[in-house]
């Protein structure tokens, strides 16, 4: 073949196999005898820009129509759940935050709520800590939805949407950096409260964000909603109704876009969400366009929640009083990131032996958690994010399992893709907003 440099072929027992790394598709398929076999198996991924990380799709095609779709996951499996069994309860925060890397605050909060429930200290979590958690979660929800909008825009041909989406997300990450010291994977929400207080500069920055963001969301809407290519690529594509969603375990914006207003913030509230005033947006169609509308509306609702959270942010403790659980160090932001404050180091090293022992015991050994198991679900940006945490009474988790919405939702791709066009596999898969770090853990 003339294009041997691009598409190497070899004979196998199941027919001719081509390895396509570039080049002209027409000249590759012209090399295949069209009468030999009507069906062709296309292996998409794992390294494909449209698969949101390392997701592999094996598609059986008849012409442009997908007759069978199978998914292969696990390329990002890092054994986080196993690793957590060898670290203290507090260190667990730094592990779970790396699961779904677009929603770190949600992972941490689900895990921390579970540990707090095991400890039986849910009532002792201070109002300020709860409000900060809600504030951070909703900022994180917006940043996660922005990445969805940006990448999906890019995949469906709206390249400017990608630039805009990442621009605003960058602003949120700057806020995160001001508050936690890190842009992502910040291990900020810890069992017992949060790692450190929100500085005033960050509050001013969030106010600034609240100021311009509604206009920006309007811009995205103006850019995409009436756009003929966008609507053609999304309306009526990859439809999944309520029955299909529930049977396949799909929750979050995808479920709400098929008409069921199931949002754990409303139906099974936590962190005081029942006291906030917000709506649960739904759409009846259940297609990609409906998912887009629901996510846009959710960003607006999140802005409402952030505004309310800012207003009720009263001074107070951000960790539980209980000295047997509360992290002993006062964290401070230095030139090299988040660390122990110099006053705290001076205190334990120079003044109080008991404080030093206390610090040492709690930091190296950690606190013990009474035996038992709990399952705590929260509403992540992708759906129900559940933490199943088991303690045997020791200083480390006996088992932690995260019910990851990305993992569960991905099962719906065959149901949405089979019988549709190849191009719609991209739109349908993207509309689930899978994050492979969360899926594979």
């Amino acid at each position, binding site marked *: 073949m003339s294009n041997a440099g691009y598409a190497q072929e070899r004979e196998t027992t199941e027919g001719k196999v081509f390895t396509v790394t570039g080049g002209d598709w027409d000249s590759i398929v012209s090399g295949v005898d069209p009468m030999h076999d009507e069906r062709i198996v296309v292996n998409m991924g794992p390294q494909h820009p449209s698969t949101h990380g390392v997701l592999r799709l094996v598609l059986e095609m008849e012409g442009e129509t997908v007759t069978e779709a199978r998914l292969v996951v696990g390329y990002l*499996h890092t054994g986080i759940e*196993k690793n957590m*069994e060898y670290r203290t309860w507090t260190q667990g925060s730094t592990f779970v935050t790396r699961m779904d890397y677009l929603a770190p605050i949600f992972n941490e909060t689900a895990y921390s709520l579970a540990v707090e429930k095991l400890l039986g200290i849910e009532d002792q979590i201070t109002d300020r800590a709860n409000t900060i958690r809600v504030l951070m979660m909703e900022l994180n929800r917006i940043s996660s939805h922005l990445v969805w909008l940006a990448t999906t825009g890019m995949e469906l041909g709206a390249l400017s949407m990608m630039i805009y989406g990442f621009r605003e997300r960058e602003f949120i990450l700057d806020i995160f950096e001001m508050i936690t010291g890190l842009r992502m994977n910040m291990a900020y929400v810890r069992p017992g409260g949060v790692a450190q207080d929100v500085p005033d500069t960050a509050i001013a920055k969030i106010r600034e964000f609240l100021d311009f963001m509604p206009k920006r969301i309007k811009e995205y809407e103006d850019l995409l909603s009436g756009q003929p290519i966008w609507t053609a690529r999304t309306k009526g594509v990859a439809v999944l109704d309520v029955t299909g969603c529930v049977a396949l*375990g799909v*929750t979050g914006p995808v479920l709400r876009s098929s008409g069921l207003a199931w949002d754990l913030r409303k139906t099974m509230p936590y962190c005081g969400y029942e006291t906030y005033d917000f709506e649960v947006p739904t759409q009846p169609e259940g297609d990609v366009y409906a998912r887009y509308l629901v996510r846009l509306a959710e960003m607006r609702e999140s802005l409402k929640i952030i505004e309310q959270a800012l207003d009720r942010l009263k001074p107070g403790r951000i960790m539980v009083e209980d000295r*047997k659980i509360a992290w002993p160090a006062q964290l401070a932001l230095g030139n090299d990131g988040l660390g122990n404050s110099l006053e705290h180091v001076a205190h334990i090293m120079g003044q109080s032996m008991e404080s030093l022992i206390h610090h040492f015991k709690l930091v190296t050994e950690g606190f013990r958690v009474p035996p038992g*198991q709990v399952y705590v679900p929260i509403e992540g940006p992708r759906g129900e994010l559940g933490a199943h945490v088991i303690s045997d009474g020791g200083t480390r988790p006996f088992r932690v399992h995260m019910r990851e919405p990305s993992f569960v939702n991905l099962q719906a791709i065959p149901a949405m893709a089979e019988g549709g066009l190849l191009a719609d596999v991209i739109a349908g898969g993207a509309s689930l907003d899978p994050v492979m770090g969360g899926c594979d853990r």
Partner: protein
Amino acid sequence: MTQPEGLFGVTGTGDTSGMGGLVRNRPVQLDAARPYGGWYDEVVDALEEAYPGFSDAIERVVIDRGELTLHIVPAKIAEVCQILRDDMSLRYELCSSVSGVDYIAEERRLHVVYHLTSMTYRRRIRLECAVTAAEPHLPSVTTVYPTADWQERETYDMFGVIFDGHPNLTRILMPDDWDGHPQRKDYPLGGVPVEYKGAEIPPPDSRRAYR
């Protein structure tokens, strides 16, 4: 379980500080007794009424930290799920999570834990099945809850529990040719020592162990 041994030959907690007060004692949860209180009675009553084999299938009822757990005879799990999903007064439509736990000290050490959600009544329930490592079989619930497909595959992958009747029980997160089931407690964490600023840091599972 064997006493963990860490660096410097330390056994047990290695605690010489006198600060052992970080322990919080709490009685081990025993079987719940009737009446359970709240909606727990409603759920268990409705299941008893709808399911003739109730007494043969339910091993224990545990209520702990506001969560209802039914321990089910492994062979009956699919039947129980079917009733829980279809009965009008139970309606557990959504299977939130399926995962495994390895209680290595127990005879039937491999537990499969199901978290079901009733969207109608806004309730949750946990089902737990225990099987032995020698005979780790139980029926798949994929016919009742299609969403259990991948989660059962993950449980098989990580714990080696075999779900009979599953359409495609293969590894999902680990490579297809992997040996062993990594999240079992007798499977080592692994890792290599790392040199950091001149000191050698051992892998996490061979550092000093606390319990």
